[in-house]
């Protein structure tokens, strides 16, 4: 006689209850959207009312050649979607994260080209490129600047590891970001382009690469940004005739405020907080905050160094994994330093420049930073430079931008489009 399978029937009843909860929540959410409007509309209203100093900087995530990411619109959409997650869905996400981290699935995100080391340091693999496009564009750009008598230097900013074989040893994958950077830097120097490779500088200074970056984000830390700013100021002196007091970038001249376990970086968000862990965040402000005129969408305003920093980003009580990127609490702004009387610098940068341009602003009269991937196809870079009257142009790129052009869909594909 076949036994009555009561456990199976109980499972069926639980399934019915589960379906009922899911359906009820979906109906409730749909009704809410219908009568109240979406959370996204509300969010857009808030964005419109924010202060002028919240620059429209494009959020750059990884320079992935597979490029579904790194689109600010997608990033905002993701944030809005996250806010709509039901408690049940949030619980699901947390559950999945936990199981995967317990199983130590460090390569689970291969499709995102991301891997987690044993100490929860997220790294990414990058494909090989010839660097022909990047080299040609930089050379054409240099020719233009030389004709106009404008100083030019290229700054190579490192990624989270200095040795490509590191990824091969750890995960059995090939990555070429350092090889690509070596190739481009060598070609640029050979062609007479003044090139600062920050990888060389950090080795000289005895720094450990893993200490310079966030564990869960592809960006370098604020402290690293300050260090890099000092190195960039050095080349402004050596190559561009500036006389910057480099002690300006010594840590003694700054106040440090650290928020521990404050956020999950963009890489961490993609793979889930349980697997990724969290990062600390340090706000760095000069003791002498100076006096600036900032230029925003709604016109100029006067403020000290704090005009670069959006401290409202620190007012947050929600789950750490949902917090927006703290890296962007420093803004890239056009700024005139009222206390310095010479130097007009344009940084053609990327999101790493959020934590270099503000510090460099202390050393020059006027500084501006643009990110080419956020500019339309009709943007005239050369005219912009001429109109701005800059005496120095720096390209400060994370080396992960090298090769992005090989994939037209990559959000960073236009970063080396300098010939315009």
């Amino acid at each position, binding site marked *: 006689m*076949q*036994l009555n*399978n*009561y*456990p*199976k*029937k*109980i*499972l*069926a009843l*639980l*399934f*019915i209850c589960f*379906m*009922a909860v*899911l*359906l009820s*929540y*979906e109906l409730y959410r749909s009704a809410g959207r219908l009568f109240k409007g979406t959370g996204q509309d509300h969010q857009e209203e808030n964005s419109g009312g924010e202060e002028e100093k919240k620059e429209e900087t494009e959020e750059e*995530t990884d320079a992935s050649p*597979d490029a*579904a*990411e790194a689109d600010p619109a*997608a990033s905002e*959409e*993701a944030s809005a*979607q*996250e806010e709509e*997650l039901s408690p049940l*869905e949030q619980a*699901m*996400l947390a*559950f*999945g*994260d936990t*199981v995967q981290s317990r*199983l*130590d*699935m*460090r*390569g*689970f995100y*291969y*499709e*995102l080209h991301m891997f987690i080391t044993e100490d929860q340091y997220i790294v990414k693999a990058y494909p090989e490129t010839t660097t022909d496009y990047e080299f040609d564009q930089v050379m054409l750009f240099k020719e233009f600047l030389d004709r106009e008598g404008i100083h030019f230097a290229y700054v190579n900013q490192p990624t989270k590891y200095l040795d490509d074989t590191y990824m*091969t*040893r750890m*995960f*059995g*994958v*090939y990555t070429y970001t350092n090889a690509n950077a070596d190739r481009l830097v060598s070609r640029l120097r050979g062609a007479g382009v003044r090139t600062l490779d920050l990888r060389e500088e950090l080795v000289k200074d005895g720094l450990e690469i893993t200490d310079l970056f966030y564990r869960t984000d592809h960006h370098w830390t604020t402290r690293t940004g300050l260090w890099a700013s000092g190195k960039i100021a050095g080349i402004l002196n050596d190559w561009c005739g500036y006389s910057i007091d480099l002690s300006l970038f010594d840590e003694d001249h700054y106040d440090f405020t650290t928020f521990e376990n404050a956020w999950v970086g963009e890489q961490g968000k*993609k793979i*889930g907080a349980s697997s990724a862990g969290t990062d600390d965040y340090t706000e760095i402000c000069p003791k002498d905050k100076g006096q600036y005129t900032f230029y925003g969408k709604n016109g100029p305003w006067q403020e000290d160094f704090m005009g670069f920093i959006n401290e409202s980003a620190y007012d947050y009580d929600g789950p750490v994994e949902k917090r927006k990127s703290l890296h962007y609490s420093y803004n890239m702004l056009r700024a005139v330093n009222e206390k310095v009387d010479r130097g007009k610098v344009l940084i053609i940068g990327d999101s790493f420049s959020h934590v270099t341009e503000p510090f460099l602003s202390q050393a020059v009269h006027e500084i501006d930073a643009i990110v080419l991937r956020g500019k339309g196809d009709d943007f005239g870079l050369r005219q912009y430079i001429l109109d701005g009257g800059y005496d120095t142009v720096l390209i400060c790129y994370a080396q992960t931008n090298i090769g992005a052009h090989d994939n037209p869909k990559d959000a960073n594909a236009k970063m080396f489009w300098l010939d315009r």
Partner: protein
Amino acid sequence: MSFTELSFLTIFLPAALIGSRVPGKQVRETVLLLVSLIFYSLGCLSFLPLLLFSVAVNLLLGRAMAGMEKKRTRTLLFAGGLVFDVLVLAFFKYLPYLAGLPFLSGLMGAGDQAVLLPLGISFYTFKAISYLADIYRGRITPQGTGIRDALYLCFFPQIQSGPLARYGDFESAPSFDLFSEGTYRFMTGFAKKVLLADVLAKITGEIYGSPVERIGIRFAWLGAVCYALQLYYDFSGYSDMAIGISAMLGYPCPENFRYPYMAASFSEFWRRWHITLGAWFRDYVYIPLGGSRVKSRKRHLLNLLAVWLLTGIWHGSGWNFLIWGLSYFLLISAEKLLGLPGRIKSRLLCLLYRIFTLVMVVILWVPFRAGSPSFALGFVHRMFSFGSLQQEEARALFLLKDYWVFILGAVFFSFPFVPLLEKKISSRKAVFYLFETVLMALTAFFFVWGLSLVVQGAYNPFAYANF
């Protein structure tokens, strides 16, 4: 719309289950027919008219045949229906491939236009053919207003990927026992698809995406085995979900998989893998051609060739599917000619033959996944090229380390441990209930885990092909 999508789980399925509870059999069938058409529209609205047209033609022909006394007219009607169904299938499934062939593209003027494949066309067309054939043979008689017949052809749990149920077995028999069995099957199938198939797909995606010259022996075997498991769990998982949903709606559904990797021979493999397709070809191609009950061995082989050619091209229009079908023709023909494995008396040789069968099945799945015949050949060659490449060896070890739980789980559940154990303890009440409780708890756990991955994939705009 896929059974593993959030919108299906949170809205469509609950709504369908509620709809299936309306009183009155005819009303229920009408509601389910509407639900099925909505399901189809959500997945493939542009081809809904084709589905409706196909259903209408087959229903009309079926009814005309059923009421026809004259055999000649019935035969003409049946032939007409068969030609209609085959032409529709051939047009959508094979014309784009034929148009892409260099020597035909100019003739056919295909240009860059691709004809999209209507959702489920292979399945509902085969169901339609079996419907007409069974009416022609007098095995079934269409009854009522035709709603049930239309529902049979459009039934949403089965329309995308089967199983190929028969009209004669398509009878509503709702009960809570059936519903609870359906729930279990659905959750099991969901976990198989999301937790095993989709995770194994990450491994096979990476391995099959590598240039063939960078694939060493370990990498190749890992890819081949993982793909064999991925395909099994993907298809059987989907079948389990289809069977589960059908049962929840009150319609028992035939089994489609029976632990195929346990097969002792190639013939047995195809009695365990995609069972309803094998049965369809047996009943509607092989047996009508004479099957094995023909006078000459040559005729028998030709019948087998016909079945396996059709099986190959049913799976896809590329050369790789044709080669795959022909390979099975050769293997099965050899078995029949040599009387294998029945003639093997030694247990050791039987075991070796079983292992040989499994290895060949794994190898023969390679053309399915390979992007081209040359890649497939290169890949299989790599499976037997000793002397590994260092980097690939490191990667293969890393993949094993990262995914060992899933690979082990996939291998474990490809054996019938659970049903065997259930059968063994079925007479011992306390043990049975304890076992079932643990099994149901694990099922729920894996279902929730799978659901978390679906949620993760749905709300991660940065993920590609994620679940």
